[in-house]
C-alpha cells in the first residue's frame, strides 16, 4: 500500500508545492493569464458540449444495444470500446488527416472548436454507453410496457419511466467523461492547431509551458484543471447518489 | 460422532449474538436448530464448523476438543443456504473437490464421485455447470460434495430456504431418508418450524442467543417451556386469556352452558378450516377438520359455544425436560 501512496499522493503533493512556489500572487497570475483563461474557456465549452451530446447519443446507443435485436449487434457492442483500446494519438492523427487540410472529404475543421469537439466526442462516447447499459439491462421492459398499455407514447414512456431509472448512472458516466475530456491531450492536440488564445486547449497549454521550462506556471494551470476535474467527479457522484436514494 | 458445545459466547459489532449456550447432539441424530432471524443459529453452526471464531466456550467433535482447530481439520460437511457452488467447475469437479484435496487417485476418485452422484440422482448432469442447474439440483450437488469427504458431522444452513414450496417438501423428506440411511450426525438450521418438526430427531429452539428449550419435536410441541416456544412451534389460540393449541378447543351448540361467540370469518385452508369468532371483548379461533367443517357448516353471523376439549390446558404447566429423548 506504500506503493499507492508513492504513486498517487506524492506527485499530487509535488504539484501543489510547485504551483505555489512563487507565492499566491504568481499562482494567480499564471492561472488567470489570458492564455490560460482562453484555453480554459475553450476546453470547458468543447468538453461540456461533447459530454452532453454523448450523454444523449450514448443513451440512445445503449437503448438500441439492449432492447433491439439485429444482425451486427455484437459488432456494434464491441466497437463501442474502441476509444478505450485505441491510443489517443492514433485517433488524433487520424482525425487530423480525415478532417484537416488534406481531408478526403474536403472539409477542414482544424483549429476550430468543431474539430476539437469531434475529437472529444470520439473519446467520451463509451463512458455514457457503458454506464447506462447495465442499468437498462436489469431494468426489464415491464415498467415500460405497463406505461405503454396505459396509453403513453414511446417518448412519454422514456421520459417518465426509463429516464429516471438510468439518470444516476448516466450522471456518473457523463461526469467521468467530462472530467476525462477536460484533460484530453493526444486526440485533440493535432486537430486543434494549438494557436494560443484561439484554439489551444488547457492540456496543450500546460505542455508548452512545461517544454519551455516554466514549471511553476504550468503547475498553476494544471492545478486549476485538476481541481475542476475532481470537482466535476465529486459533484456528479453526489448528485447521482442523491437521485438514486430518492427513488428508493 | 457426537457433537457437543458448551459455554459458547459470541458478540458481533457490539451485539451479543450467542450467550453462553451449551448442548449435546447425539450420534446419528438429525438435530434442528430452530429460531427466528437473528437468533444466532447460523452463527452457532458456523462456530461448530470452525468458519467463525467464538469469543469463549468449547466445541467438541467425537469427544475431541476442536475449539482451536481450523475448519479443514474438523472433518465436517457444510452446506450454505446459497449452496456456494464452485461456478467455474462442473458438477463432477465440484463433488470431487474434497477428494482431490485428499489426493485420492484419479480412478478411485471418479468411482466415488459417480457413486455420490447416483446417490443424489444427478448422474445425468455430471458434466454440466452450476448455472445450468436448478436450485434443487444445486442443493443436491452441495450435499454430495459435502458427503464426498465422508465427514463425521453434516451441517446444513437453511438448506431449503431458497426453494419453492413443492421442491422444498420433496427435498426435505429425501434428505431425511438419506441421513438415516447414511447414519451421519446432522445439524440443520432453519426458521421453518414445520420443517424442523417434520424431519428432526431433536429440536433446539434458539431465541436471542439463548436456548429456550431442547427436546423431541412432539414433546416440545406439547410441553413448551415458555410462551415463546409455544407460539413459535405452532399456532396458538386463546380462550379466556389462556393459550391453547388449536386442536384443544372445539365448537359446540350454543345451548350447552358455555360462553357463546359470533362467527366472524371462516377461513378454508384446504385440509383444515379455521373459524374465527368474537364476542364483546375477545377474539378467538377454533380449528376444524375438513369433515367437521362439512358437518357443522359454520357461517358468519352464527353463534357457537367454544369449549376446551382436553382436560388440562397443556401450555400452562410444562414439565421441565424430556427424558425420553436422552440416550
Amino acid at each position, binding site marked *: *500500500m506504500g506503493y*499507492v501512496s508513492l504513486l*498517487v499522493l506524492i*506527485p499530487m503533493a*509535488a504539484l501543489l*508545492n510547485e504551483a505555489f512556489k512563487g507565492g499566491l500572487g504568481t499562482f494567480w497570475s499564471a492561472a488567470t493569464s489570458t492564455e490560460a483563461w482562453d484555453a480554459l474557456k475553450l476546453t470547458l465549452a468543447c468538453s461540456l458540449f461533447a459530454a452532453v451530446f454523448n450523454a444523449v*447519443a450514448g443513451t440512445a446507443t445503449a437503448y*438500441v444495444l439492449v*432492447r*433491439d435485436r439485429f444482425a*451486427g449487434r*455484437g459488432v456494434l*457492442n*464491441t*466497437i463501442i470500446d*474502441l476509444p478505450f*483500446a*485505441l*491510443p*489517443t*494519438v*492514433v485517433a488524433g*492523427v*487520424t482525425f*487530423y*488527416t*480525415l478532417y484537416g487540410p488534406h481531408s478526403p472529404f474536403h472539409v477542414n475543421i482544424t483549429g476550430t472548436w468543431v474539430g476539437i469537439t469531434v475529437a472529444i466526442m*470520439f473519446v467520451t462516447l463509451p463512458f455514457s454507453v457503458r454506464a447506462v447499459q447495465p442499468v437498462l439491462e436489469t431494468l426489464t421492459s415491464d415498467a415500460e410496457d405497463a406505461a405503454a398499455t396505459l396509453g403513453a407514447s414511446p417518448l412519454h414512456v422514456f421520459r417518465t419511466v426509463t429516464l429516471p431509472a438510468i439518470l444516476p448512472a448516466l450522471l456518473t458516466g457523463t461526469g467521468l467523461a467530462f*472530467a476525462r475530456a477536460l*484533460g484530453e*491531450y*493526444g486526440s485533440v492536440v493535432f486537430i486543434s492547431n494549438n494557436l494560443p488564445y484561439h484554439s489551444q486547449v488547457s*492540456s496543450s497549454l500546460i*505542455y508548452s509551458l*512545461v517544454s519551455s521550462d516554466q*514549471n511553476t506556471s504550468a*503547475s498553476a494551470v*494544471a492545478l486549476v*484543471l*485538476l481541481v475542476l476535474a475532481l470537482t466535476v467527479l465529486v459533484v456528479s457522484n453526489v448528485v447521482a447518489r442523491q437521485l438514486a436514494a430518492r427513488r428508493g | 460422532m457426537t457433537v457437543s458445545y458448551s459455554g459458547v459466547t459470541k458478540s458481533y459489532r457490539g451485539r451479543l449474538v450467542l450467550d453462553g449456550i451449551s448442548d449435546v447432539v447425539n450420534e446419528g441424530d438429525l438435530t434442528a436448530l430452530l429460531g427466528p432471524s437473528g437468533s444466532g443459529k447460523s452463527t452457532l453452526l458456523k462456530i461448530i*464448523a*470452525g*468458519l467463525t471464531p467464538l469469543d469463549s466456550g468449547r466445541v467438541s467433535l467425537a469427544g475431541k476438543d476442536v475449539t482451536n482447530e481450523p*475448519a*479443514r481439520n474438523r472433518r465436517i*460437511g*457444510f452446506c*450454505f443456504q*446459497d449452496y456456494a457452488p*464452485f*461456478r467455474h467447475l462442473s458438477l463432477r469437479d465440484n463433488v470431487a*473437490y*474434497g477428494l482431490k*484435496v*485428499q489426493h485420492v487417485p484419479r480412478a478411485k476418485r471418479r468411482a466415488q464421485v459417480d457413486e455420490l452422484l447416483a446417490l443424489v440422482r444427478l448422474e445425468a448432469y455430471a458434466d454440466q455447470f452450476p*448455472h445450468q442447474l436448478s*436450485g434443487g439440483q444445486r442443493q443436491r450437488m452441495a450435499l454430495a460434495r*459435502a458427503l*464426498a*469427504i465422508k465427514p463425521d458431522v453434516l451441517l446444513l444452513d437453511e438448506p431449503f430456504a431458497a426453494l419453492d414450496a413443492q421442491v422444498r417438501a420433496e427435498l426435505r423428506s429425501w434428505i431425511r431418508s438419506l441421513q438415516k440411511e447414511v447414519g451421519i450426525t446432522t445439524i440443520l438450521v432453519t426458521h421453518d418450524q414445520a420443517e424442523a418438526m417434520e424431519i428432526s430427531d431433536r429440536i433446539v429452539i434458539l431465541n436471542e442467543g439463548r436456548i429456550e428449550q431442547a427436546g423431541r419435536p412432539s414433546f416440545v410441541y406439547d410441553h413448551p417451556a415458555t410462551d415463546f416456544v409455544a407460539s413459535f412451534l405452532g399456532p396458538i389460540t386463546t380462550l379466556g386469556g389462556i393459550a391453547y393449541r388449536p386442536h384443544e378447543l372445539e365448537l359446540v351448540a350454543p345451548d350447552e352452558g358455555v360462553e357463546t361467540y359470533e362467527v366472524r370469518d371462516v377461513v378454508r385452508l384446504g385440509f383444515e378450516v379455521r373459524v374465527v369468532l368474537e364476542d364483546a371483548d375477545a377474539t378467538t379461533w377454533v380449528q376444524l377438520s375438513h369433515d367437521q367443517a362439512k358437518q357443522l357448516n359454520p357461517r358468519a353471523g352464527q353463534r357457537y359455544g367454544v369449549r376446551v376439549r382436553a382436560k388440562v390446558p397443556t401450555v400452562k404447566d410444562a414439565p421441565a425436560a424430556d427424558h425420553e429423548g436422552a440416550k
Partner: protein
Amino acid sequence: MRRSSVVLRSVVILYVGALLALPLGFIFQQAFVKGWSQFWSALRDPAMDQAIWLTAKVVVLAVPLNVLFGVGVSLWIVRHPSKLSRALDVVIDVPLALSPIIVGLMLELAYAQTGWFGSTFAYLGLKIMFTYWAIVLASIFVSLPLVSRQVIPLLRELGEHQEQTAATLGAKPGRIFFTITLRSIAWAAAYGVTLTLARVIGEYGAVLIVSGNIALLTQTLTLNIGANFDSFNSYQGFVGSLLLGLISVLVLGVIGIARHRLERKRYDSFV
C-alpha cells in the same frame, strides 16, 4: 414502436460508424496506400524499431506489476474492510480522471533530479526521469485502477461462501486461493489486464513529458507516431498507427469475450 426502433437503430449505427469505425478503417487504408514493400521498409525504420522494442519492454514490466497490485488491493479492500481500505478505494480511482499531461507534470515534479525527491535520488546516483523507468512509472500510474475496478464488484458479489466451503472440504488457504479465488475472478482480471495493456501501449501525454521524447532512445511507439506527424512524415506515422490499430482490434476482441463471460457469470446466480 417497432418502426421507430428501426429509425433509432439506423441513426445510432450511422453515428457510431462515422465516429468510430470510419477513422479505424481510414488508418488501414492510409498505411497501405503506398503498397506492401513500402509498408515493410517503413516498419524496419530504426526509430520505429526502437520504439516497438521500448514499448514492449515497458509492457512487460508495467502490466504484470499492475495486475499483481490490482488483484491484491481488490482482495484487501473487499475482504478486509477498514477506513484505510475505503480511503484507498477512492484514491486509486483518481488516475482515471486526470489529464495525462498533468500526470506527466506531477511525476516530473516529484521524481526529477531537480524535484522533491530529486536530491535524494541524485545523491544515490539514481536517475528516474527521462529514462525507461519513468515511462514504466507513468504507465503504472495511469492504469492503476483498471484491474481493481473490474475485480472489486465481482468479489463483492461472489461473497466468501465458496472459499469457506473449500475450507470445510479440507483445503489449505493457499490451495483455496489458487483453485477457487483466482479462478472465480479470472475473467474480470483478464478484462482488467486487457484494458491495462491497451492503456499502457497507448499512453501518450504522460509519457511525452516523463520520457523526454528522445528519438531512438526513450520514444515509445505512440511518441514515435506523434513525432512523425509533427515532422510531416505522415506515412511513417500511419504505418505505426496501423500497428497500434491492429493491436487495438485484438484488444477489442478479447474485451468482448471477457465481457460476455463476465455477464454470463453475473446473471446466472439464481435463475
